[in-house]
């Protein structure tokens, strides 16, 4: 049940022209700046928008093929959608919202409610609140309802448009694992729109970056991080990610990755939990000599693996444990006279690392 899509359509600001492919049981992440055309692509997959030219195949069956005039209307596509901003119907209760796709398909109210109530419960929605209207729900509760509404029909294609962007940091951290579990237990194709790199990296199998309506780069997280092709990708995905178990040792915390460990600030998570630490490359300082003891708790020795110049900035890949990418001004890169193979030291503060549960 693979997804294949080729779409071309003209919007007022730009032309969207993309080709996508995703395997059954995988999550495809669409990344891109605001207004780049991500939601337009999603709307075409959902059938809400019809492109000028295009083809959408799901499991080999055409949902759309402008060449032969096939355009299955949205209500007959086997899809589940979580819309940007949730778009819960304000006049329906939480459970009625979640049950809407079932009642819309003619399933009796009682059965539809029972099924969606069960699903809401599995997604961690407080079932006592199921008669509340969306206006009375918290952001996290509302998004759980929106997620339930997308999943309740057990569709073959799941489309999630920025499921966490409207939430504050705390509820986002609460919701992310819920979405992760929902995605990994969902048997069909998943397409997720986000502009949150952590979400893209934790939830996505393959990333597609869309800028100005076109795909600027596609690949795995690792591929994008190693060789970002645009400054947007570089900024977005060129972050350092430390994935591993949290270890508490005396008053200090660290994440132990398979390839070395880094000190982090108290993350407010349980020791032993698996976590992701995200470090922007600009937070790293490079030194030719071992720096004196200071505020930077992390001091790693390594060699220069690669240098990429991007405008007035230089991105330096350092082979250390764990490996990092540093971004320094071109001036300081020249001052250090860096070449691949040179030995150097990378230092960064523990508080510079943003720790999230994995």
């Amino acid at each position, binding site marked *: 049940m693979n997804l294949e899509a080729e779409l071309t359509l003209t919007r007022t600001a730009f032309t969207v022209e993309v080709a996508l492919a995703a395997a059954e049981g995988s999550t495809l992440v669409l990344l891109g700046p605001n207004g780049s055309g991500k939601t337009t692509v999603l709307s075409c997959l959902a059938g*809400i928008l019809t492109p000028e030219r295009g083809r959408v195949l799901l499991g080999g069956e055409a949902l759309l093929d402008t060449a032969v005039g096939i355009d299955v209307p949205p*209500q007959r596509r086997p899809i589940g*959608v979580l*819309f940007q901003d949730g*778009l819960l119907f304000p006049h329906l209760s939480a459970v009625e919202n979640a049950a809407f796709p079932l009642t*819309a398909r003619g399933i009796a109210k009682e059965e539809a409610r029972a099924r969606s109530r069960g699903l809401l419960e599995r997604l961690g929605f407080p079932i006592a609140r199921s008669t509340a209207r969306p206006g009375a729900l918290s952001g996290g509760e509302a998004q759980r309802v929106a997620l339930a509404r997308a999943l309740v*029909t057990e569709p073959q294609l799941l489309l999630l448009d920025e499921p966490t962007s409207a939430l504050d940091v705390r509820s986002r951290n609460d919701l992310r694992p819920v979405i992760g579990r929902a995605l990994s237990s969902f048997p069909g194709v998943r397409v997720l729109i986000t502009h949150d790199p952590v979400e893209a990296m934790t939830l996505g199998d393959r990333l597609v970056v869309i800028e100005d309506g076109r795909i600027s780069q596609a690949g795995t997280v690792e591929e994008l991080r190693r060789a970002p092709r645009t400054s947007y990708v570089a900024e977005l995905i060129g972050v350092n990610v430390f994935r591993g178990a949290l270890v508490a040792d005396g008053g200090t915390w660290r994440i132990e990755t398979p390839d070395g460990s880094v000190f982090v600030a108290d993350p407010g998570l349980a020791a032993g939990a698996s976590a992701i630490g995200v470090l922007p490359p600009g937070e790293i300082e490079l030194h030719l000599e071992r720096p004196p003891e200071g505020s930077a708790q992390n001091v790693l020795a390594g060699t220069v693996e690669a240098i990429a110049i991007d405008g007035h900035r230089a991105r330096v890949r350092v082979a250390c444990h764990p490996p990092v990418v540093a971004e320094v001004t071109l001036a300081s890169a020249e001052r250090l006279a860096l070449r691949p193979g040179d030995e150097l030291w990378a230092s960064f503060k523990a508080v510079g690392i943003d720790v999230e549960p994995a």
Partner: protein
Amino acid sequence: MARGGSRRITPAPVAVLSAIGIAFLAVPVLALVVRAPWSEIGEKLAASGAWVAFRLSLVVSLTAAALSFVLGVPIAWVLARSSFPGRALVRALVILPLVLPPVVGGVALLTALGRSGVVGSWLYDLGIQLTFTTAGAVLATTFVSIPLVILSAEGGLRSLDPRYEQAAAAMGASRMHTLRRVTLPMLRPQLAAGLVLAWARALGEFGATITFAGNLAGRTQTLPLAVYEARQTDPGAAVAASLLLVALSLVVLVAMRDRIFGR
């Protein structure tokens, strides 16, 4: 809404002008209350046939409001959702009865649907006469009430985020299901406002009704017509009947206030 929190100060000119305006609107109504022949109001109402007219007014205004709703909402839909040549003209045409003197509306209806009217003569040959009938009173009243439903519903449709309906479609809802379960419920405040305003307008309608349907107790004499007729013979009864009309309108408007015009 924001009670307590921020302090709101009403500027002096606004306070003064609003006080004058409220007095201007409220004093005539209070005058009716003061001058009503309270000691003999029951007899006055009975003698002037106000009760018969009151019952007829309820029937006519409620039917007209329902008819305005059934016809007005689809008109609003077409105006808000579809584009066709001459749409601006059509909108002007269907809103026209709102600004037209009702008597002119009555004359226009007479010319169209009267016994010798453009369409009416043809209906008359089929044995259907609308003038001088309760149905005619309902038509005349509907004619002036429809624009209020159209305006309210069209405004609601235009301000409704289209993404909700798209979402419903993407969730498997047919057009009909989306209309019944999403669009109409989300428009409920505007639809209710349109319905109540149309009803209130219908209840007070005079000119189009008397011109098109005439004035016959029990058949076409609604409460406003009864008030007008009583004015000549028994001014006290006219005041009593007016009071009945004011009370009825006021009760409904106050009851609907919070639900429709926002809290």
